[in-house]
């Protein structure tokens, strides 16, 4: 049975694209067929994060408008056989996507993949609404920071009212992915804690991704953290999140990147 997941946040720059790519890779590594779809028309970046920027020939809009077949537009990852990318258009404007077009493409993707991960654009405009419209489930990406939490609250409201499932009176599962989390700062009371954010947004937790230098390194080379670096804490956190998404029970640990000897000696004790 195929699952369509929207990765959304309201606020920009919180890690939607990174999270889509990293979780997509982690799911595909287990042999499941995964397609990651870029909904950010005009500002596509998922191709770049995946290292596939020079392989885009046809895009989502070409398929939605019937100018290309889905098979022509899908880009198969060179490293993981079961992973595909559907890029957004860089040149067309965002109004080129219609409800009907998106519904048809999502329907076709459901036939060929176990997982369809939709990378939403920022904002609450048409593009973001289209990305969530036909989803079964949502991953709400949030930073432990006031503006991000507020925007996530707004997005949760939209998920509960503007999606096809919500309109039909069905349930749309929403899970929180807390990114750029710094356990040290949170322990010192300088950053909202995991419990704070969960309490305010009141949706279940999918995972906690630590602030990590590995993320920038990964996007520099076009290989998500889950693809390389088995030792990376961020990579491990994304792999755990992917397993939870797939229904496994994985204990939640609060990742702490800076537990060095010096920090242990001079820093406050980590919980």
């Amino acid at each position, binding site marked *: 049975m195929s699952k369509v997941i929207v990765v959304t946040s309201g606020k920009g720059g919180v890690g939607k694209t990174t999270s889509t790519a990293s979780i997509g890779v982690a799911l595909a590594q287990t042999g499941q067929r995964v397609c990651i779809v870029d909904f950010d028309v005009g500002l596509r970046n998922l191709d770049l994060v995946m290292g596939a920027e020079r392989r885009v020939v046809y895009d989502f809009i070409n398929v939605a408008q019937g100018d290309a077949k889905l098979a022509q537009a899908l880009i198969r990852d060179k490293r993981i056989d079961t992973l595909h990318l559907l890029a957004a258009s860089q040149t067309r404007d965002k109004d080129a996507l219609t409800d009907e077009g998106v519904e048809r493409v999502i329907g076709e993707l459901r036939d060929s993949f176990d997982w369809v991960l939709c990378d939403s654009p920022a904002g609450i405009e048409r593009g973001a609404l289209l990305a969530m419209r036909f989803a079964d489930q949502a991953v709400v990406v949030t930073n432990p920071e006031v503006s991000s939490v507020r925007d996530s609250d707004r997005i949760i409201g939209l998920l509960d009212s503007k999606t096809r499932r919500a309109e039909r009176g069905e349930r749309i599962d929403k899970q929180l992915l807390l990114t750029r989390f710094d356990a040290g700062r*949170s322990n010192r009371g300088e950053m909202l804690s995991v419990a704070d954010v969960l309490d305010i947004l009141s949706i279940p937790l999918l995972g906690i991704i630590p602030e990590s230098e590995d993320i920038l390194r990964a996007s520099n080379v076009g290989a998500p953290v889950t693809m390389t670096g088995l030792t990376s804490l961020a990579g491990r956190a994304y792999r755990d999140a992917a397993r939870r998404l797939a229904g496994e029970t994985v204990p939640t640990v609060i990742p702490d990147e800076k537990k060095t000897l010096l920090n242990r000696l001079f*820093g406050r004790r980590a919980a």
Partner: protein
Amino acid sequence: MSLFRFFKSRGTAPVARERLQILLTHERVALGPRDLVAILRDDLLATIARHIEFDPEKLSVKMDRAGAFSTLEIDVEIPSDKINSAALRRTPSTQASAA
């Protein structure tokens, strides 16, 4: 470092938390009954699940507005064997009354 911090006032996270809680309580009201249906659905799910084993996907909650009235439509599909086993576990006095 940590010694200095010890004497300084506590971090700013509690302020952030409080501001958000106040703001969002206000905004959720201001933006209308944004997910009243979702809240109802979650509560109904929890309530029904306490008594009967059922598939959460089979619960449908709809709210329709027509003129001065709103109708709330709740549709739950439950396999009949679950009803029987749930009835056996309950005494008549605890039977839920349908509104």
